[in-house]
Every structure is written in structure tokens, then in C-alpha cells.
């Protein structure tokens, strides 16, 4: 499966403006909505779900990476976003390190024609392998354009 195809350029953010975790979640949710990949009326559900998820446990998985991921009613397929904040954001990550790279995954509550929940663990494994790669993190932080940033996902897809 070509998981990188789930990350559309228009849903990704090269330089986040957010100065806190809360602002970052809002910014990612807004970007996903403005990308047109999801219906505008799902925007608040997505934003709220992302905030609620953080109250269960931080999605900061270490190595300056966070993987916010939620299920949202009304979606027909998974929508993903890669976002970079070079300055780093406090995220209460498991290793205490600030977060610079966000992989956000928004997915339907159950199976649909375009989405098979059985794929979730496999996609998360792919994301985890990318996130662990020192080169990927370094190149993502150095990307000058959004196509460069998103291109990394494809380039390093078989890592």
C-alpha cells in the first residue's frame, strides 16, 4: 500500500504558525478543512476530536514527533496531514522533547467503500518507521517548499 498517497499536499503545512499544542491542533484541523478534502461542517468535530484525544494521553511519541490520530463521524476515507514547526512545541511528549513534526490522521469511525479499518495499524507502523528515521526528520525540517516536504514521504516510503 502506498501510504504516502494519503498525505495530500494541500492538507500539509510547511511552517506552522502555532505557538502551543492547542493552537497547533486548531491549525491542522483548519488546514484539513480548507484543503477541501473533508466537508466544511466536519471542521469542528475534527478540531474537538483532536483536542479530546490529547486529554487521554499525549500523542507526542518522542524524537520530536507527534501523531495525533482520531476517528470522526461522517468521513468516508482517511485524511492525513504532515506539518512542521521547526521551533518546536511543548507537547508533554513521552521523552519530554518538544514536537517539531506532526503526522495527523483523521479517519472514519467504521469501514466505508474507501476505508478499511484493518489497515490502520499497518499505516501507523509505516508512519512510526518514517518518524524514527533521523534522515526523514532532518529533511522534513529543512524542506523549503510543500512539494519538497510531501515528496519526502514518497521518497522515503520504503524505509
Amino acid at each position, binding site marked *: 500500500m502506498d501510504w504516502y498517497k494519503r498525505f495530500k499536499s494541500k492538507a500539509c503545512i510547511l511552517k506552522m504558525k502555532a505557538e502551543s499544542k492547542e493552537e497547533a491542533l486548531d491549525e491542522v484541523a483548519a488546514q484539513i478543512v480548507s484543503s477541501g478534502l473533508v466537508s466544511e461542517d466536519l471542521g469542528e468535530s475534527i478540531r474537538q476530536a483532536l483536542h479530546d484525544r490529547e486529554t487521554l*494521553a499525549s500523542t507526542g*511519541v518522542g524524537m520530536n514527533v507527534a501523531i495525533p490520530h482520531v476517528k470522526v463521524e461522517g468521513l468516508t476515507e482517511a485524511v492525513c496531514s504532515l506539518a512542521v514547526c521547526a521551533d518546536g512545541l511543548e507537547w508533554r511528549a513521552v521523552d519530554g522533547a518538544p514536537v517539531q513534526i506532526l503526522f495527523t490522521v483523521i479517519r472514519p469511525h467504521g469501514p466505508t467503500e474507501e476505508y478499511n479499518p484493518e489497515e490502520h*495499524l499497518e499505516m501507523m*507502523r509505516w508512519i*512510526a*518507521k518514517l518518524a524514527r528515521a533521523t534522515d526523514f526528520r532532518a529533511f522534513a525540517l529543512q524542506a523549503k517548499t510543500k512539494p519538497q516536504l510531501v515528496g519526502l514521504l514518497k521518497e522515503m516510503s520504503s524505509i
Partner: protein
Amino acid sequence: MTNCRNVTVVNEAGLHARPCHAIVSMAMSHACSLRIRPAGEGTREVNGKSILELMTLEARQGTELELSANGGGAEELLSGLAELFASGFGEREGAS
């Protein structure tokens, strides 16, 4: 001396990010090392104190894992983790 314990992933959603977070949080509060691998496999062993490494196991419901801890608090950690796995990480069905 290394202490070992086999556990089974019983929660429906498998070892996704939140269970991995719970494992690492518990492991980090113990001085010992923690290695985890699918039972019976020799190669795919990961650091139990790294969420990202644990996620690469892609352990689904029903998977049996071998936990190995070495150092201070090893037995206590393994007992705690065995309870955590047995409880299904406190998840309701369909959680993720």
C-alpha cells in the same frame, strides 16, 4: 539477569499508539531495560521504552509477545505490564 514474561494483546484495536504510550510510561518509571518481540520470532525485537519502536511491531489482537526486562525493578515491571495487557489497556471495544 534477564526476566521474561509472555503476554497476549487482547484489546480489539491491537497495539496502537495509546497502548504503546501506556507501556512506555510504565517502563520509563523503572530503571531496567525492556525489550519486546513477537513470541517465537528471533529478529523483530524492539526497545520497550520507545513508542515509535513499539508501533512498528504492528501487533494485532491475539498476538503473543515476549517481554524481557533486565535490571532494577524488572520483575515488578513485568508484573505491571502483564496486568496492563490483560486489562486490554482499559479500552472499550473499537477504541483507537
